[in-house]
């Protein structure tokens, strides 16, 4: 008992005195795609823990929640007139870019963190799309229109979401943030990155994830189509033959 207390006291003393602890959790860790799936909504909950040693902050706390979906390789093409017709000419390739992004914060991300910090932590949609790893920066401004186009098109599909009021504080230390997943968001792993800021400094960070998975019939069909693709094709062909035959029996006129 005495040893345990001593250990506890020791560990408390060793902990950095000033840092807040961020605890985050999701309403679910697995979203199932069923046959009537039309998108999902999950909620990120969190709490900021302080103790007696935590120094007091001058500014308010800011929370940024970044949800990043499965990574994709995307080509953005630009149509240009060539003679009378419009053809895809210039293109820019983006690799390892999340196909789904939700950038939710308690305040506009520009006010939460500096430009450099946002780029480094890939915060906000611009932080994602202007990240140096996802595409080649060309000389001057050549790649700018492609990055902006990707941002615009993904936002149109509601695959990329940004909201400066996406995180709400319930008390001064409790917050929640609802995340909308549209139906066209792909199955796979979704990382949830929760960050605590104050005065342009990141104080604490908590990462978790959830999975979007096909279940039941959808999962079996996808698995069969992938593993036994020839058999699957034969089954679809047989279904087509069967229905054609049924129709000819039903509508036979003689």
């Amino acid at each position, binding site marked *: 008992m005495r040893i345990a207390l001593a250990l506890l006291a020791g560990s408390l003393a060793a902990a950095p005195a000033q840092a807040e602890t961020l605890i985050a959790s999701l309403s679910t860790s697995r979203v199932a*795609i*069923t*046959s*009537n*799936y*039309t998108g999902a909504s999950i909620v990120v909950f969190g709490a900021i823990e302080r103790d007696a040693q935590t120094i007091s902050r001058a500014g308010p706390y800011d929370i940024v929640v970044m949800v990043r979906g*499965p*990574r*994709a*390789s*995307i*080509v*953005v*093409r*630009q*149509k240009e*007139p060539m003679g*009378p*017709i*419009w053809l*895809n000419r210039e293109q820019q*390739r983006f690799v390892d870019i999340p*196909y789904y992004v939700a950038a939710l914060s308690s305040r506009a991300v520009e006010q939460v963190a500096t430009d450099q910090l946002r780029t480094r932590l890939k915060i906000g949609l611009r932080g994602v799309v202007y990240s140096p790893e996802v595409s080649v920066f060309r000389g001057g401004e050549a790649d700018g*229109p*492609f990055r902006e*186009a*990707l941002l*615009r*098109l*993904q936002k149109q599909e509601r695959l990329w979401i940004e909201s400066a009021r996406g995180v709400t504080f319930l008390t001064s230390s409790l917050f929640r943030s609802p995340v909308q997943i549209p*139906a*066209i968001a*792909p*199955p*796979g*792993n979704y990382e949830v990155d929760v960050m605590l800021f104050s005065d342009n400094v990141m104080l604490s960070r908590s990462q978790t994830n959830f999975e979007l998975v*096909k279940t039941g019939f*959808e*999962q079996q*069909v*996808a698995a069969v*189509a992938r593993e036994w*693709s*020839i058999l*699957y*094709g*034969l089954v*679809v*062909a047989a*279904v*087509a*033959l069967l*229905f*054609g*035959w*049924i*129709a*000819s029996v039903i*509508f036979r006129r*003689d």
Partner: protein
Amino acid sequence: MQVYLPIAEIPVSVLLILAMGAAVGFISGLFGIGGGFLMTPLLIFLGIPPAIAVGTQQAQIAASSTTSALAAWRRDSIDLKLAAFLLGGGFVGTMLGVLFFALMRRAGQLELVIVVSYVSLFSVVGGLMLKESVSEFWRSRRGAARPVRRAGDHPAYLGLPFRMRFPRSKLYASVIPIVGLAMFIGFAGAVLGIGGGFILVPALLYLFRVPPAIVIGTSQFQILWTTLAATVLHAAINDAVDVVLALVLIVGGVFGAQFGARAGRNLRAELFRFLLALLVLAVGLRFAIELVLRPQEPFSLQILEIQP
């Protein structure tokens, strides 16, 4: 009512797809064609990935041509010998088409290939059909008879080597143009998600002068087998067949086709050909406009790969 498509990975409205299937089925029954050239663009417009629209549409055409091929079989209006040669060419063409499709998809040029092929193929075929039907119309107005075909009066391509007799089709011709035509249609069908009936029927009618009753039966028989082959190949090579989407399309199309076929019996032959020509031209024009007009959004995305 929304249903999630397991391969396309998006939800669609079942009622909308059923209604579209029925409407296109009606038109296909009316004209005795597969209707793929209407359905595939509609599916792409609805947001189904082009590859899956093309692959899945093959299953629907297979189903609707099963019905018509069975009817033709009962009427005994299939020239099996001609069909065997068409099938041989059709299978090779389909195989090449599916491989070409996979290649273009990997190169990221599939969309362009589909649009350009639609424009060129449909304007040419539609234009020829329109010309034919208009000149026929004027001839019948003036009361002049169609020029009578005399023995020994046939185009040069029928006289190439490997000539063969097709008694049911009243045809004595080289098999080279027959197999070549079938290969071309199989190829175009697999790439564009069409059965190719609207090319095969006029080609057999006008180029090979096969009797109309035999043309319809034989082409339906040929389309049935090539689309079945294309369905299996698209599933095996391109993972581009969605069974749920196929099922909804088949059910809608099969019923629509029956009502279309009934309505078609009251349509006069010249008017019928004229309307079909307009329809084909309209689809070609629709794609041409897309190619020519300044796009509202000059940028487009193509997803090459998503790692789950």
